[in-house]
């Protein structure tokens, strides 16, 4: 459903992405692995329209999206849960979540989805009136995650969701990702918890210095020496 | 500034507030006068200067001082030092007159002021031989006349509100001296800072005081809303005086027949003389009533006439000679014989001080010798608000 074809991207004069091509199919979890600064965030920002590729092609659900603005891409059913939470600081938890359901397609059903999200993260229900900016780091991460799910997406891009979460919540989060897949939602996951990510993912790409250097079935990748050494700390 | 080259025009320089907060005053006070007057003189070929043996047209060089005093002083210096204009015409506003007068005087430039005048200009004038003041003001001779008029009618008490600035302080101060002389006690006095928006509390207080006379000494931004509020709050003192504002055409167009009986400051009415009628036609005929100004316009006009005649009499553009003429001789203007006395336009030349709206005309009611209509006291009440 997502089809990235030979894209290049720049920050000013510095090239951040080099000739990237990748695919995500329906109901599949695809992991993107890479060291700090490899360009993972840059890549997903390019896909979701926050950054414009200088060349190459991106297709989503058969539609060309690399020249669309991010708001139009969301309409198509892609949801991007950005790195570093990025909440609306002066809106309440609830309003933040509601914003996730902004697209016309899902706005009407927002109460139902909201309940589902609260069920996933009960803490948020308790804090629904609190301003996002006063939440603890981990609580903010939960809101970001919940907000991304509110749009009822077909593809969900998640950038480092477990960052700053207590171990027990991290477990739940992987559980959530698993259940999303079983609902038929495709997931494109960036996660530093590489071991567990590869265990849950169907396929994975490895990014280094802005270039894809490896791709394949995640079970196979776990066995790769190079992966073990560079990303699993073994 | 006399020069040996053949001269073909008289250059007059001005720093005027074309923009900024003072533009409102500048635009409606001196501007229409110098525009009309200059056109008229130039249509006749200009001013005859004997020294050159011909008529020289007037050319205006106008700078925008933005209503900023620092800019005005700088531009005045520029006009004198750099542009070497032949004459200087005045800037706008009393404070500006105070700041400009010493500069003009220092350089030996004759300056006949327009918008602005105040009691303490009288103290300054002896040290500023080149400065001549054309406008009438509080004790020159408006408030004494007002006090006398009211006293004669038996007014006993007055409530004064004034804008907290040079103008307001002066008028209320002079009223404090003149009113008691005619048996009028001031039972309420308050200042309002510029940009005050709410006059209801003041009007209510004035109403509660029961004073015979209500005075609003301030600019239109005070007088117009104070009038409106008086109407709305059904406040009907026996005399309601406000200015400068009541003397303008826009006061009448704003309130229409409701303006009946309101008092203000004035200089003339068209019906006063043939010359007055001619000037009225020149300035106002076929134009919107808003632009009328019964107080300042005739005085500025007379000031310019004096200036022109002084040049003609002097026969030269030498400021020093012209100053002598201005200081000592009499001129024939729209006001009749006109002259300056210690730098002030003599009060004998004024053709009126106090005006009152009567049937759509701002009649001169004081001093009595100049009156074009009888002073109506008490004024009729505002048109009654429609009962709900």
């Amino acid at each position, binding site marked *: 459903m997502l089809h990235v074809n030979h894209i290049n991207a720049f920050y000013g004069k510095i090239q951040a992405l080099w000739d990237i091509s990748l695919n995500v199919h329906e109901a599949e979890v695809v992991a993107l692995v890479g060291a700090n600064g490899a360009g993972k965030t840059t890549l997903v920002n390019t896909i*979701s329209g*926050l950054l414009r590729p200088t060349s190459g092609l991106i297709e989503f659900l058969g539609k060309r999206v690399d020249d669309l*603005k991010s*708001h*139009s891409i*969301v309409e198509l059913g892609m949801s*991007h849960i*950005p790195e570093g939470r*990025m*909440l*609306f*600081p*002066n*809106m309440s938890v609830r*309003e933040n979540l*509601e*914003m996730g359901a*902004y697209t016309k397609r899902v706005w009407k059903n927002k109460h139902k989805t909201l309940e589902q999200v609260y069920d996933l993260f009960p803490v948020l229900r308790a804090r629904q009136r609190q*301003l996002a900016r006063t939440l603890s780091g981990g609580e903010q991460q939960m809101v970001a995650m919940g907000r991304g799910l509110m*749009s009822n997406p077909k593809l969900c891009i998640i950038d480092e969701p477990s960052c700053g979460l207590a171990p027990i919540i991290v477990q739940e989060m992987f559980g959530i990702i698993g259940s999303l897949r079983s609902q038929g939602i495709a997931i494109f996951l960036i996660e530093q918890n590489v071991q567990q990510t590869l265990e849950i993912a169907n396929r994975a790409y490895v990014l280094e210095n802005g270039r894809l250097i490896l791709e394949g079935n995640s079970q196979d990748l776990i066995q790769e020496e190079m992966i073990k050494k560079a990303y699993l700390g073994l | 500034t006399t020069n040996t080259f053949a001269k073909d025009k008289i250059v007059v320089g001005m720093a005027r507030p*074309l*923009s*900024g*907060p003072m*533009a*409102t005053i500048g*635009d*409606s006070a001196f501007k229409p006068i110098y525009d009309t007057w200059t056109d008229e003189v130039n249509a006749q070929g200009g001013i005859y200067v004997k020294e050159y043996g011909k008529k020289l047209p007037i050319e205006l060089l106008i700078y925008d001082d933005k209503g900023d005093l620092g800019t005005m002083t700088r531009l005045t210096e520029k006009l004198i030092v750099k542009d070497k204009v032949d004459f200087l015409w005045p800037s706008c506003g009393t404070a500006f007159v105070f700041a400009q007068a010493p500069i003009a005087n220092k350089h030996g430039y004759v300056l006949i002021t327009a918008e602005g005048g105040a009691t303490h200009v009288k103290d300054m004038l002896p040290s500023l031989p080149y400065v001549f003041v054309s406008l009438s003001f509080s004790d020159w001779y408006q408030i004494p006349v007002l006090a006398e008029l009211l006293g004669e009618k038996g007014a006993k008490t007055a409530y004064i*509100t004034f804008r*907290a600035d040079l103008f307001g302080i002066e008028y209320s101060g002079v009223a404090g001296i003149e009113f008691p002389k005619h048996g009028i006690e001031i039972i309420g006095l308050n200042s*309002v*800072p*510029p*940009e*005050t*928006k*709410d006059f*209801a*509390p*003041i009007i*209510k207080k004035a109403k509660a005081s029961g004073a015979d006379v209500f005075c609003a000494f301030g600019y*239109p*931004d005070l007088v*117009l*809303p104070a009038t*409106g*509020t008086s*109407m*709305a*709050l*059904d406040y009907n003192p026996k005399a309601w005086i406000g200015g400068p504002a009541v003397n*303008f055409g*826009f006061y009448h*167009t*704003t*309130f*229409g027949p409701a303006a009946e009986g309101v008092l203000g400051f004035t200089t003339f009415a068209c019906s006063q003389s043939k010359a007055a009628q001619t000037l009225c036609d020149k300035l106002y005929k076929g134009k919107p009533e*808003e632009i009328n100004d019964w107080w300042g316009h005739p005085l500025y006009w007379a000031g310019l006439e004096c200036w022109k005649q002084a040049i003609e009499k002097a026969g030269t553009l030498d400021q020093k000679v012209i100053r002598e003429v201005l200081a000592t001789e009499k001129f024939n203007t729209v006001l009749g014989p006109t002259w300056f006395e210690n730098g002030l336009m003599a009060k004998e030349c004024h053709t009126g001080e106090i005006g009152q709206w009567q049937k759509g005309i701002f009649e001169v009611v004081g001093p009595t010798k100049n009156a074009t209509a009888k002073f109506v006291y008490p004024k009729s009440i505002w048109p009654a*608000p429609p009962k*709900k």
Partner: protein
Amino acid sequence: MITTFLDIVISGLLMGGIYALIAVGLSLQYGVARVLNISHGEFIMIGAFGTYILYKTAGVNPILTLAICGPVLFLIGFFLYKTLFKILLAFSDSAEIFEGKSLLASFGLLFIIQNIAILIWGADIKSYSFLNIGVDLGGALFPANRMVTLLFAVVISMTFYLFLAFTRMGKAIRAAAQNPRIAGLMGVNINQVLALCFGFGALMASFAGGLLSMCYPITTTMGMEYTVIAIIVVVLGGLDSIVGSFIGGFLLGIVGSIVTYIEPGLALVAYYAIFIILLLVRPTGILGK
């Protein structure tokens, strides 16, 4: 005594209504679109002149004019954003930079608009008299034109508050105010939303201008004075709060009314003193977060 007090408070409310009305538009433009629109007062001026001219030349009821001038100014505001401010936004690296630039741009607009207005309408004072009648409220008289203004201020502000708090577009506007990039990720068309805000701000300014012209004389140079009032009210109330502006307006109105009653000479001193003290106590305004 009590009636005097009531009288003062009601006068204050009427005044506050005008202040609030002046401020609401700016609150929207700054709170959401982050444009501290120094030319806000010029839009008020245009609204006022539109009303004046229609009343004088065609006798159109000033209240009716609101419906004519409002949409026109909305369009002007909308397109101004779509052209000028959109470009500035695109070329600003951070929110602060955009704020600085847009402030300066609006400063430029002030000059341009005012000059054009002076060229068209002159700089002299204009005024007309409308609803200069008293309305009897519990034994005390109040000017009818002020009551109309108050009524409009309340209705307009309430409508806007409800709009922002509860509608989808309203939420998008607020989200855009806080993090436009991420609002885009939620599906919000930022430029559209911000342009709408700016347009609505101009529309409010025009309403304010129209209603003001019923109570005060107007001039083409009057803008700055009202901009200052608007900024003070908005900051007093707290930036991202329409309700705050409303409360701020009333607060100033009532304080002004009380002080004017006691010593009119201190009315403006009191405004600024209140403002300064309040900010010291609550550094982000009454309802600021």
